[in-house]
């Protein structure tokens, strides 16, 4: 139990994918101008990364290792993640239009997001069990969601602040992202990776 809690905590705070591994920066900067949109994106990412973490674990252990194809890991993972996301989008569209309205536009965006692939690859490299892998995926995604929503909240307020002309827009967003990342460095001593 303790071990799982540690995995979760380490993935969310200490090894935050956006703020200390710098993966998934594209949606982090792209979908963070409104809190509402960032929440939608966060749900979609959590959904996809958790599923991708478990699917790629199965793929790794039942296909890649027996056939000695570890050098093709990236290709296989991209194929399976892209197909999985596509499949889920179809299924959601049919079964729950409301959920599709919330997640739909974000799902195709993150099919081969580097955070998704990064979680999958780091996961299998660390040689965890199936449950631990899935949990780590979920934790990493929750960390992504935390960073994204925090950042979107900050940006919404910065929009109303008197920012110097030359820093308006992206520059101030990048500076804020850097400061947020610095703040997350404070968690580094919390859990040893």
């Amino acid at each position, binding site marked *: 139990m303790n071990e799982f809690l540690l995995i979760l905590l380490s993935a969310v705070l200490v090894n935050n994918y956006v703020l200390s591994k710098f993966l998934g920066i594209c949606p982090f900067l792209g979908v963070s101008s409104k809190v509402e949109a960032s929440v939608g994106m966060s749900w979609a990412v959590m959904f996809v990364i958790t599923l991708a973490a478990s699917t790629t674990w199965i793929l790794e252990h039942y296909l890649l290792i027996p*056939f000695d*194809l570890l050098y*093709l890991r990236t*290709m296989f993972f991209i*194929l399976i993640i892209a197909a999985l996301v596509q499949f889920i989008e179809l299924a959601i569209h*049919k*079964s729950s239009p409301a959920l599709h309205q919330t997640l739909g536009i974000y799902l195709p965006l993150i099919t081969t997001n580097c955070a998704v692939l990064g979680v999958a690859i780091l996961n299998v490299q660390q040689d965890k069990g199936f449950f631990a892998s899935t949990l780590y995926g979920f934790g990493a995604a929750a960390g992504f969601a935390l960073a994204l929503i925090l950042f979107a909240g900050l940006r919404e307020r910065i929009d109303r602040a008197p920012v110097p002309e030359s820093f308006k827009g992206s520059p101030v967003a990048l500076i804020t992202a850097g400061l947020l990342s610095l703040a997350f460095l404070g968690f580094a001593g919390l859990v040893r990776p």
Partner: protein
Amino acid sequence: MAILTAVALFAALALLVGIVLAVATRIFHVAGDPTAERIEALLPQTQCGQCRYPGCRPYAEAVAKGEAEVNRCVPGGEKVMRQIAEIMGVEPQAMEIEAPLPMVAMIREEECIGCTLCIKACPIDAIVGAPKQNHAVISSHCTGCQRCLEPCPVDCIEMLIKKERLEEWRWSAPSVVEQPEERKAA
């Protein structure tokens, strides 16, 4: 040999995934209405509700089903109405039978308590202001949808008739569309 195994395996997996997706597309096929989508693409997406539908998408769907007239979109005006009429293959109709004059919201600032409720209600963000500060309407952006009236707790918003400005002025449209048959008879 190892390469052949790898290629074969990857191809097999890709084929499998492809088949699964192709089957899934059939199974999960949603009868999306292409007409509704084309109409929605024309609508201004202000979600103002002046068409008496909750938003642009529901209105587009209602038009596509033939449940709604083509002339309900007030912000879109005559241009959008003509385009919708073309898609639906019906005659262009006059905009809104009641023909409301262009309205613009105005906040009586001395009564405004700065509650921000109207700001949240405004579908196009044409109201500016901060909590406990006077709010103001950007009249050049206001579409006159009246959504801010109801949430205001002190009823300090009123609708004024929009004054014509030089930048927005244009020739008034002919009031009657001449029918081709009548022309022939004459």
